[in-house]
């Protein structure tokens, strides 16, 4: 009964929102259109993005469009979180903090690369949850950046990386922050109802599995991390692999890792035909895309509907930007399709 009370309203609302997402036909039309301005026009005239792509945004610039769409995603998060209270509201706050972490990673990358940080590239505009944006942007190098995080929950996790080699720092930072995020998220699940806890644990478990494999792979290939380190950074509470199996992976080679994963349900990670490094992230997203897409076929009153919508929207935004970018770099329609999360191959008219 409690779940009906909690979800009857918000799930109906979410289903309406989901029905507004783009269809395959929209994707195909966007792909056919060559000019950015035509694509924007199409989105404005035929989709709900008319409310997002207002005239105060520079509509001839992919970056500013991307930013507007990203912020729209945050607004949707906040909107849906208003339907929840107490522990559920807290959960949404944690889910939102993922974008803060994404921004923070970007800041790290920018500072480590000596690049400039511009507010225009981030999800958040003003109100961060934990960090003080203005203070961070004044950092001249990564050590200062870490010190400027003092007083936030990230500092304690990152303070040991002062004076770390720049080439590896961003990888360390990413792992550490993701680890922190999943730990907090996982803990929060325990304060939810039994059904929701099981659903979220299952999803988080899959993320953890895939992240572990990805880290080990990248750790081997690009960063030359020690197996002991990789093992220590690995996340607990995954679905498929226990500590012993993770340890085996950490102490194996790239070839063995590949062979091992190809025997599991995550074999899509190492799709032999294409460039592995390029498609790994995409394949992970495709995996979750179909998982979230299927959520709407169930008629249950649980948290999966809202979570799924938010992720579908996130993926759709990524796809739209990919399509827009592909025109800029003159990628063919056929090739662009390979880079999209939504699978539209074979559905051409």
């Amino acid at each position, binding site marked *: 009964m409690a779940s009906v009370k909690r979800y009857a309203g918000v799930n109906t609302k979410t289903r309406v929102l989901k029905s507004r997402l783009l269809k395959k036909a929209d994707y195909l039309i966007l792909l056919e259109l060559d000019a950015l301005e035509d694509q924007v026009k199409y989105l404005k005239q035929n989709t709900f993005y008319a409310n997002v792509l207002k005239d105060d945004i520079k509509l001839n610039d992919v970056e500013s469009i991307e930013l507007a769409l990203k912020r729209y995603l945050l607004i949707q998060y906040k909107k849906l979180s208003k339907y929840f209270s107490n522990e559920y509201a807290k959960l949404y706050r944690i889910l939102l903090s993922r974008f803060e972490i994404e921004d923070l990673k970007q800041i790290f990358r920018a500072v480590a690369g000596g690049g400039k940080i511009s507010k225009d590239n981030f999800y958040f505009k003003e109100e961060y949850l934990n960090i003080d944006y203005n203070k961070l942007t004044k950092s001249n190098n990564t050590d200062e950046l870490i010190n400027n995080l003092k007083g936030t929950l990230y500092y304690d996790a990152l303070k*040991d990386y002062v004076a770390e080699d720049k080439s590896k720092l961003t990888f360390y930072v990413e792992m550490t922050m993701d680890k922190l995020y999943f730990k907090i998220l996982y803990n929060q699940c325990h304060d939810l109802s039994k059904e929701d806890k099981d659903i979220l644990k299952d999803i988080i478990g899959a993320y953890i599995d895939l992240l572990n494999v990805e880290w080990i792979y990248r750790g081997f290939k690009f960063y030359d991390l*020690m*197996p*002991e*380190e990789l093992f*220590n950074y690995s996340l607990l509470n995954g679905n498929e692999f226990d*500590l012993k199996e993770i*340890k085996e992976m950490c102490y194996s080679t790239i070839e063995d890792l590949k062979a091992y994963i190809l025997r599991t349900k995550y074999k899509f990670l190492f799709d032999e035909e294409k460039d592995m490094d390029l498609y790994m992230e995409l394949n992970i997203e495709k995996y979750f895309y179909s998982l979230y897409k299927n959520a709407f076929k169930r008629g249950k009153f649980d948290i999966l509907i809202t979570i799924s919508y938010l992720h579908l929207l996130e993926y759709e935004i990524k796809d739209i930007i990919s399509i827009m970018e592909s025109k800029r770099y003159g990628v063919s329609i056929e090739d662009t399709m390979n880079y999209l999360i939504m699978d539209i191959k074979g559905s051409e008219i």
Partner: protein
Amino acid sequence: MAVQKMTMMNIIGNIEDIDSVVLDVLKANNVNLISALNQIEDNKFLFNVKDENLEKYVELNFATSFKTDMEYEKLKKKVLELKDILHIHEDGIKEYETILTKDEIIAELNGFYDEIHEVSEDLKTKKESLNALTNLYNSFPETTEIPFPVEKLRGLTNVTYRMGKLSKEARLKLKKNYENILAIVIHTASTKDGEIYMMFYPSILNEEMNRILRSLNFKEILIPDSYRGSYKEIKQQIGEEKRTLEKEIEVVEGTISKYKEDYEKKLLFLTNHVDIKLKIEDIKEKLARSSKYFYLSGWVPKKEKSQLEAALNKYKDTLILFNEEGDQHPPTKLKNIRLFRPFETLVRLYGMPSYEEIDPTPFLSLSYMFLFGAMFGDLGQGFVILLSGLLFSRKNKLFGGLLSRLGLSSMIFGTFYGAVFGFEDIIPALIIRPFESINTILMAAIVVGIVLILIAYTLSMVNAYKRKDLEEGLFGKEGLAGLLFYLILLALAASKIIGRYFVHPILSLAIILLCLLSMVFKQPLTNLIKNERPLHGHDISGYYVESIFSLLETLLSMLSGTVSFIRVGAFALTHVGLFIAFETIGEMIGHAAGNAIVLIIGNILILGLEGLIVFIQGLRLEYYEMFSRYYKGDGKEFEPASLDRKK
């Protein structure tokens, strides 16, 4: 009636007097302040212009609002801080006779604030270092021992020694991977937030080990160089330092309790003054000021006017004006005799009567007590309600009062019905036994309902007269037309029963038709009488559609409203019926003890469940059948500015 007469009071005084005038107003506890600035802007701040007060009148044009003095907030913070440091929890004496000025308060407070503040800061730092020391102390093992002094470990060249804390998860990973880690790892102690480990590894592996430990989020515990000796000795050293620090803290705490003795009274005294000042600052938001004068407006009960005047007369050059005329809506202050007072809560629950309206409390009190008693008439159970009401009134005076009055009424009806705890064979019935004459009881209930509804009609017309509302009073469905219509309907119904006409049927029909027509055409009729044009408002067709539908509703509500009162009789019957049911169950059990238990449980159930239902049903009758006919309840409550209430 029971709504107190109000008068508007305007005060103009010298700005120097403001604090003490406001204090007097607060002490009087009978002025409902309203925004003086609004009054001035609406040109309602009126007084006679004479030569001697011409300046006051001129300055009125430059009136502005008061700026809140933030200084008092800061003083309050300081006072609270001191109270916190000295562990003082009581509020202090409330005393309103003398009033210190701001500078006096600041001077008094600063006399001891810095001194105490400093000591408390000292205590804080000491406690922090004690905390750190305790943490360090707990990090050292109770049982594990190294057979050589730590300083020797520090000096090692080829082996690195480290001590630190690991989380549960990190510990698990370390354990699973021992064989790959080139270090001696010794678990030495457990603390609240992690496990303490000691590690030795070849110094050439320093970089690798650093990376590994970092990936485990290893929190190193550094042992200051000043500590020497084995673990056991170091632990002793730390323990001693801890004890010294604890002693020091004890001394400081002693100083603080000395401060408490010395300054408690003074601090409470100052707290009181700061609170008063804050309250006055709060009140000033409603006041207006010019460079020389302040302006205050508020409603005062007429009865207390002279008393207030006397209190404020001591200020020279202060003008106090009372103004009873005007088109403003005064707030409502209810004044009822003790018997009725708890029922004011029920009236408030629906809405405060407006100033021009009759206070419905007396009628509600009497009718509600009557209805409750009639539905729940039982000498014994009534007595229980009375007792619980008396008990309750210690905690919640109003609710307790309500309960005890309802209990009393229930007892009275209990003697009428001859019922004690459900038993009908202990005392004789003075009037009737409901279960033995069901029809009479139900008929009586309807008659009671008709009488109550008729009273409601009368009150409605009185209210319309007080509001000078011709339209509703004469032609409205709760006005004269409605009443006539209702009476004729009753007469017709009675004729049907008795078989003889009181009013000639054709005449009845004519009156009914007339009433209905007047209800439909009430707006144009009124305008015709008042000689106002146009006869209708903007939307003529809308008006007629609405009035025809409301006619239908009137007809229905008259019938259903009257029949609705049957529940009074029905519940009187249910009350007995319920008990009979329990009595039967009791008899079926067969032995005396079981019987007694069932009867006791039955009584409790009846008291709780039926008592609640009757309480609600009675309220329903009051609100829906009666209030809806005569009572609007859109008034504002009189809220005097006072020192007690936090507002």
